[in-house]
């Protein structure tokens, strides 16, 4: 990773956090769908990134979100689970012939249909764990499933939209 892509990488992370904390925090579409856009940052990290780094990045990113949301530990737990599942899921849905070296699993590299099948389960795992912890003890699996499903769809749409609008298609060499 050269210095330029490192700066872009950090900058992207900061922007996503700001959007998450300042805008998406107060937004719930139809009262059920919440956007977890910042998770896109973890999903789009390069395919062969170190598992340990992935877990640590996810945990601290989640914790940072938690502090703003006053839900300490909940986002962190969910994001860590996603970071743990991600490598296995990537292996499970690898295209024939495997991934290109240093590929990133984002929309422009892999195409829309692949991206949906990649991100939907991960967003769902995230939302499901998050709402399960949140509604713990109040009983109501149906409510949790309902909220998770719509939050997943909403988050995924946001992630796709952001990538289509703001991420440049990288030049192929």
């Amino acid at each position: 990773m050269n210095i330029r892509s490192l700066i872009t990488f950090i900058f992207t992370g900061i922007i996503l956090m700001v959007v998450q904390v300042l805008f998406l925090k107060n937004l719930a579409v139809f009262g059920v769908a919440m956007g977890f856009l910042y998770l896109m940052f973890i999903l789009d990290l390069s395919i062969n990134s170190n598992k340990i780094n992935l877990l640590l990045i996810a945990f601290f990113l989640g914790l940072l979100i938690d502090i703003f949301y006053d839900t300490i530990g909940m986002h962190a737990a969910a994001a860590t689970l996603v970071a743990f599942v991600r490598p296995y899921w990537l292996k499970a849905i690898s295209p024939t012939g495997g991934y290109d070296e240093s590929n990133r699993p984002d929309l422009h590299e892999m195409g829309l249909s692949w991206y949906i099948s990649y991100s939907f389960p991960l967003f769902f795992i995230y939302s499901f764990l998050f709402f399960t912890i949140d509604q713990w003890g109040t009983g109501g699996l149906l409510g949790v499933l309902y909220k998770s499903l719509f939050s997943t769809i909403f988050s995924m749409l946001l992630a796709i939209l952001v990538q289509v609008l703001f991420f440049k298609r990288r030049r192929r060499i």
Partner: protein
Amino acid sequence: MLRILQFLYSLRAFLLFLLLELVAIWLIVSNNSPQGAAFFNSSNAVFGSVLKTQSDISDFLDLAEANEELLRQNAELLARLEVVEINRDSTDNQPLDSNFVAEHEFKSARVIAQTLRYAQNHLTLDKGKSHGVKPGMGVFNHSGIVGRVKTVSENYSVAISVLNTGLLISSKIKPSGVYGSINWDGQNTTEVKMLYIPRHVEAQAGDTVVTSGYNAIFPEGIAVGVIKKVEQGSNQNYLDIVVELSTDFSKINYVYLVENNQIEERDTLNQEAEIVNEY
């Protein structure tokens, strides 16, 4: 031995995952009790200032409405003052009898961040230790109760919202004077449940519910809401009562904080009598 270490090393990602999840669960659990002090939250100086800037901007757009509301309240208070105020003369300068010492002290604050969509909702206020805010103070606004202060930092504080399944508030049905507890069930943000009202009590839809003043957080008589539904529920001893909140939680900008000056005295008395007060 080397084998074991190699085995553990090959599992390092999984072990780290377990460790991080355990830390997260520990944070959730230790933060979840309504009394417990929180480690990190939005009352922290850095995070508080970010949220305050955001709220500064969005509140600016609501200024006209806020002004109108304040004017209305002022007029109401002036009208009330008219009744109480007596002409002072020289005999009034004596120190007041302890019966007349104000039991409650009021402060104002602005809500700079708030959650609504979870089972455990919180509010962040822009006043903290340096303004005299203490954990345990009651929070309410002109239309009714809002919550209770949980933690304070130097300049900010975090309050548990009434819309938090962990908070119970002692309250009473106004016409009959029967006491119960208000608790949110995590479903609808405009409704709370009223617990521990015995079956023989005649409560009906439309009755007003106010705070009872029993748990010394709120003074007596602050509005909670209006009874919406009374049912003979599944519980053999108690009624199922749904109360519609008078506070609109989607529109809270300015709140009042109330502190009971005699809470220590009451607590010591309770301790001597070996009564354990839940909150």
